[in-house]
């Protein structure tokens, strides 16, 4: 949630397409991005029940190549990288010495030599400085931020509505797999990955910026009448929150570690060394750390980021994200809470504009898509 400090906002290749679709534009991650086209609820509904189309070109893509990318990345992140096979994608977190997060990212291994690293827009400059400050032999890095576009289609109808435009068999692509293929409307090969940030099935397409309008228009032209909705960042945030997915700056920060964020599965303590490993080990063994928990409000008042969370009148934490959750029809939130207040079923209160409102700790995610 940052904007460029000097005030100059960038535009993605799809900016004019967003305006033509009636989007409301807001600054986000240094770009002028669509926050909504029709209504957040309508767009959310499209993704949960049909499919939605997103422009995520504000996210930064770094091209990595060379024989040592795996080993290099493993030293700077919590997850394993070197054992990824060509055609695999993997979630990961770049950490600082204290175990906090520089950013959460996805590595895509395109072939033996070439990788794509996708980082959050708001962290793009920081992350480029970080990887540039840690050079290694056998690792070549190119910052493609702004030169490459990213279009996502998310929702249960994604395979059906995307397949006619893609040469390879996308139904055969496994979750967190990626492939280079041909896509109608694009002259260059497109990287397609079965990844996303909504809790639904779906795909992300990485392509040159100059090809983005052609592919975007083609996908909407035939599918919009069937119910494919262009979706903005507003719907995306609600979708990811319901799906229990962390948002950098909220559930994870330079101070809030991936362990606190509940991402234990992504932290590979059996790696010999990585930045912040000792700090994370000490935190894990102490077990006394504040952690991210899911929370639902009893009533109609939404909890919002920054609101105090209390147990028996004593402050035990703070809301990190909060919204009305259309799928669960309740106000849902994440909170960073002390361990004694983090157990499922714990009754808490959230202070909203000076008044306390009842809430309860519930398991994350709030929403899990039904098995196909």
């Amino acid at each position, binding site marked *: 949630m940052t904007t460029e400090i000097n005030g100059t906002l960038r535009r993605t290749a799809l900016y004019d397409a967003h305006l033509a679709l009636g989007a409301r534009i807001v600054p986000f991650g240094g770009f002028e991005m669509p926050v909504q086209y029709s209504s*957040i609820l309508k767009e959310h509904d499209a993704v949960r029940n049909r499919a939605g189309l997103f422009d995520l070109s504000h996210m930064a893509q770094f091209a990595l190549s060379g024989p040592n990318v795996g080993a290099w990345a493993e030293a700077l992140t919590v997850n394993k990288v070197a054992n990824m096979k060509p055609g695999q994608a993997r979630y990961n977190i770049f950490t600082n010495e204290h175990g906090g997060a520089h950013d959460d990212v996805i590595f895509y291994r395109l072939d033996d030599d070439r990788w794509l690293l996708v980082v959050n827009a708001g962290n793009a400059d920081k992350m480029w400085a970080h990887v540039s400050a840690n050079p290694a032999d056998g690792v070549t890095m190119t910052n493609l931020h702004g030169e490459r576009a990213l279009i996502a289609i998310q929702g249960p109808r994604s395979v059906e509505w995307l397949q006619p435009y893609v040469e390879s068999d996308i139904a055969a692509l496994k979750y967190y797999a990626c492939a280079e293929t041909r896509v109608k409307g694009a002259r260059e090969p497109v990287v397609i990955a079965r990844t996303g940030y909504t809790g639904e099935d779906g795909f992300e397409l990485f392509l040159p910026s100059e090809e983005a309008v052609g592919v975007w228009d083609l996908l909407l032209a035939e599918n919009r009448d069937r119910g494919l909705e262009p979706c903005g960042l*507003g719907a995306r945030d609600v979708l990811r929150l319901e799906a229990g997915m962390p948002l950098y700056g909220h559930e994870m920060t330079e101070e809030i570690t991936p362990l606190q964020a509940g991402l234990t599965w992504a932290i590979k303590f059996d790696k010999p060394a990585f930045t912040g490993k000792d700090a994370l080990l000490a935190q894990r063994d102490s077990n006394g750390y504040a952690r991210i928990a899911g929370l639902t409000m009893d009533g109609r008042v939404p909890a919002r980021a920054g609101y105090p969370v209390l147990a028996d009148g004593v402050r035990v934490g703070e809301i990190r994200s909060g919204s*009305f959750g259309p799928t669960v029809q309740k106000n849902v939130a994440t909170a960073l809470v002390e361990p004694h207040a983090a157990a499922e079923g714990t009754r808490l209160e959230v202070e909203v*504009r000076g008044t306390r409102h009842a809430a309860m700790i519930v398991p994350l995610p709030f929403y899990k898509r039904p098995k196909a």
Partner: protein
Amino acid sequence: MANGVPAGLLYSKEHEWVLMDGDVATVGITDYAQSSLGDIVYVELPRVGATLTQFDSIGVIESVKAVSDIFTPVGGEVVGTNGDLDNNPASVNGDPYGAGWFYKVKLADMGQTNDLLSSEQYEQLIAEA
């Protein structure tokens, strides 16, 4: 009604409308405001009996993503609120000048209405926004 701005109402620069009936004003937000806010999920209104000062922040409107202040276009004693908004806040989106009304105020001073805009003036305001 031109550009969705009903004639016969008064308006504030903060996009509230006021319907005068004697010295009692009914207050709500305009179609332009509800459209800008998006899907409304909660409205926090002042209590009946509360005394409001014109143009103060006296409550909030929450859309799915954001919290916005309600700046009351008129001051005086609150004599009624729209209780239906608790269960149906979306009526602010669907019918901002009707079922989506907020509250009624008995005006402390009728002169306050001089500080509000006519429908023509309000139309011009949103045309320039």
